[in-house]
């Protein structure tokens, strides 16, 4: 008879570790230890994560018994954590290892992480939404503590004593009286123990943290600065061919005519065609590139909206109409001062420095794919659909990758490599070019945002209305107190392919909210900081705003032609405020962002240096979308698909920066890779207004570098 795991006390000899079928094959207790080797393990199931914050991010009916992570100590004492989360530069490989090392009384170097491998790691929906730290970190902490309990109980059994008095240090358990000791290797030797995480397990209190909470450097840091780390684009398999895919010059084009005869004549080149999918392979990428250029094709161009029509297109093709709420209308009628504004937010590109890359190999009907994706299990499903083979026959691996920012939720390059590899019967690598990345990946959604706000004669915010067309509902709800409000996301027809981007629509929505709040303050001749504080009741946000403004010197006198601006908000448990100082040349109208001060609070801090790096990275990447980034397109053609024409922040663009981290050891940690981006654009916009009086209501704010009036 199979027994439920959590009914079992310690040493559950008769359990079935993974009763449910997992992606990557049903893992039974026997196959688990066969795969991992004997040892001692603790695991987390999905329902353990459901109890935590952000439970709503799981879809209904998700298998609650699906294993979500585990930690295993093998017979050599090696500690390995398995999680489907992936490393794309957030340095979670480091922060999660810190949390585990802390509980197991070992060093960070003693913790090994296997991440994002559909065969070896448990199912995971993906690494996005700032969920790794709030969900995975606290649970891995408990899983590690549970492993510690198992190790201690094993030692106690060995010595035939009670477990309460046992001490452990650096991977060794000490006998309380006779000086004997047992290493984790000795304890795990010959064992096949696994237990579900003990929810009530004692964890090391945050105040006693020695490893977590400190600036441990990036795990494997040396391999990156020596060029040794193997990204997917670097991977080489025996007899591997280099693949290229034929792209139309326009989006949504249909293949009309095709002539591959010249390309086929090139030695070593194979041409693959499946409907509109045309690709070539060659023994080296130089030849593949050349062969691709030798293909002649004509494409049928489809009429489609251009950037000029973007915002009217989004409004005219809306899938619903804005609802008007009677109570909000009434409140507006009573308002003394009103602001009504429309905001335009352009499409921008993630442009991760490592373009999409995929390597695929078929072996007796089984498919192996390596690709840089934030959703390896999602890519496994893409491949399942594409090739109609069972998931169990598909293994997707995700080596630590050259960033994503929300832009790598898909597996295009992996799918293309697999198609080509199947056709030619050899492994294939497909590395996208920068132009492909700009044209064929997806963008941060463009948006049209309409906002109305009103204050009464006492300066009290009385009515608020906000409609977001297309860019998304994240961050749509204003954090400010107002008795009558209505906000609505209205989906529309998007001319360009769009998807997730760091902080989703919060960047756009907070830009609109913080701009209108600023305008409302100025309409009344009020200080924008005071006006905000009067309407905030969230203590965490108030604190971070106050401390940031104070660090920035909000009250201080400004030098000529300089302006101050601020903005604040919260995303997924991260509270942020940004203050900006800008200079606008009175003659040339040229803008210079001089200083950005960002305050951030996301609960307990696990790694201060890496947290600061994430905050700064968000702020400075956000500078691009705030000031100059925009995808330009005309009737299906992307007009700036290159770094020479699509400007991203560089050394010269970087202002003086300061980061203020507010540590709250009393609160669970939240993610930091998203929230700090939201304040940049509105803080700069408001600072520009402070100098020039101009209200700029579009992102990017100053694509030409000059304030246009």
């Amino acid at each position, binding site marked *: 008879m199979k027994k439920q795991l959590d009914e079992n006390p310690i040493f559950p000899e008769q359990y079935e570790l993974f009763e449910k079928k997992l992606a990557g094959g049903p893992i039974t207790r026997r196959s688990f230890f066969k795969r991992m080797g004997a040892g001692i393990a603790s695991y987390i199931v999905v329902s353990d994560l459901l109890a935590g914050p952000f439970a709503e991010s799981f879809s209904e009916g998700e298998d609650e018994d699906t294993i979500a992570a585990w930690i295993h100590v093998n017979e050599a004492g090696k500690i390995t954590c398995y999680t489907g989360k992936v490393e*794309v*530069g*957030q*340095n979670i490989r480091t922060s999660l290892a810190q949390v585990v090392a802390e509980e197991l009384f070992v060093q960070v170097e003693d913790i090994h992480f296997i991440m994002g491998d559909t065969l070896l790691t448990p199912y995971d929906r993906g690494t996005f939404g700032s969920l790794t730290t709030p969900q995975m970190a606290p649970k891995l902490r408990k899983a590690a503590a549970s492993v510690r309990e198992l190790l201690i109980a094993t030692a106690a059994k060995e010595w035939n004593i009670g477990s309460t008095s046992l001490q452990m240090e650096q991977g060794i358990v000490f006998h309380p009286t006779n000086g004997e000791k047992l290493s984790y290797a000795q304890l795990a030797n010959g064992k096949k123990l696994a237990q579900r995480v003990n929810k009530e397990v004692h964890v090391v209190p945050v105040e006693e943290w020695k490893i977590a909470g400190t*600036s441990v*450097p*990036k795990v494997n*840091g*040396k391999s*990156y*600065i*020596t*060029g*040794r*780390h*193997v*990204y997917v*684009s*670097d991977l*080489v398999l025996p007899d591997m061919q*280099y693949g290229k895919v034929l792209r139309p010059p326009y989006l949504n084009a249909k293949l009309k005519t095709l002539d591959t005869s010249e390309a086929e004549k090139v030695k070593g080149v194979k041409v693959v065609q499946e409907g509109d999918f045309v690709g070539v392979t060659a023994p*080296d*990428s*130089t*030849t593949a590139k*050349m062969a691709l250029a030798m293909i002649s094709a004509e494409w049928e161009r489809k009429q489609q909206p251009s950037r000029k029509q973007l915002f009217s297109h989004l409004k005219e093709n809306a899938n619903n109409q804005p609802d008007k709420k009677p109570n909000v209308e009434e409140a507006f009628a009573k308002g003394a001062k009103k602001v009504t504004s429309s905001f335009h937010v352009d499409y921008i590109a*993630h*442009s*991760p*420095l*490592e*373009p999409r890359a995929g390597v695929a190999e078929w072996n007796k009907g089984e498919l192996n794919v390596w690709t840089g994706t934030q959703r390896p299990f999602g890519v496994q499903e893409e491949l399942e659909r594409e090739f109609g083979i069972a998931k169990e026959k598909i293994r997707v691996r995700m080596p*630590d990758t*050259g*960033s994503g*920012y929300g832009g790598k939720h898909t597996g295009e390059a992996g799918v293309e490599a697999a198609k080509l590899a199947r056709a030619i019967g050899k492994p294939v690598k497909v*590395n996208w*070019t*920068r*132009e492909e990345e700009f044209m064929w990946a997806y963008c941060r959604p463009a948006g049209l945002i309409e906002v109305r706000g009103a204050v009464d004669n006492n300066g009290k915010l009385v009515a608020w209305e906000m409609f977001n067309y297309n860019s998304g509902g994240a961050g749509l709800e204003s954090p400010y107190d107002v008795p009558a409000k209505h906000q609505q996301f209205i989906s529309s027809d998007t001319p360009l392919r769009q998807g997730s981007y760091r902080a989703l629509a919060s960047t756009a929505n907070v830009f609109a909210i913080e701009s209108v709040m600023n305008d409302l303050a100025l309409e009344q001749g009020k200080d924008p900081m005071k006006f905000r504080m009067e309407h905030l009741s969230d203590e965490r946000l108030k604190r971070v705003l106050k401390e940031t403004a104070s660090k920035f010197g909000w009250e201080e006198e400004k030098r000529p032609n300089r302006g101050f601006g601020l903005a604040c908000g919260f995303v997924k448990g991260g509270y942020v405020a940004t203050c900006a100082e800008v200079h606008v040349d009175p003659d040339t109208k040229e803008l210079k962002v001089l200083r950005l001060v960002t305050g951030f609070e996301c609960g307990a801090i696990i790694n201060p*240096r*890496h947290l600061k*790096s*994430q905050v*700064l*990275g968000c*702020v*400075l*990447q956000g*500078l691009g979308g705030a000031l100059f980034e925009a995808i330009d397109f005309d009737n299906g053609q992307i007009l700036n698909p*290159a*770094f*020479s024409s699509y400007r*991203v*922040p*560089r*050394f*010269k663009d*970087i202002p003086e*920066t300061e980061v203020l981290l507010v540590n709250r050891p009393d609160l669970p940690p939240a993610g930091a890779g998203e929230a700090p981006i939201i304040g940049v654009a509105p803080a700069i916009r408001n600072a520009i207004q402070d100098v020039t009086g101009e209200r700029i209501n579009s992102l990017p704010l100053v694509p030409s570098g000059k304030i246009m009036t």
Partner: protein
Amino acid sequence: MKINVNGKSHTIKVSANPTLLEVLREQLELTGTKYGCGEAACGACKVMLDGTPVPACITPAVSAQGKEITTIEGLEKDGKLHPVQEAFLEEDVFQCAYCASGMIVSAVALLERNANPSRDQIIEAMNGNICRCCTYPQIMEAIDKAKSRKA
């Protein structure tokens, strides 16, 4: 054709007129040098040709004949990191680190030309290198550290 990379001579195939980047990565298995844009606009592929930082992605391999090529793999000598690598490691600069090789090679080339560059000179020299994670302030700190050690 023969080229000299990191102090070693290699025979390479050039009949298809490959770029230096393609030769390094595919023929010599030196994958530390990265592709980022293919138009010399991002710096991910920077290598040194006789000490000058050049974008390998637009440099024809044949043009490197007779020159001393140094890649990221050639900076470490006898298992000892180059002082600039050392500084980048200590400053724990990177997030995804895909730009790391190009950044470090550019910084090494700068400090070899000018042992004590000003802040503006550093920015000028490094402006062709993109870090999409925007770890620019940390990179500046690492270069400052390497510089002060050299001085």
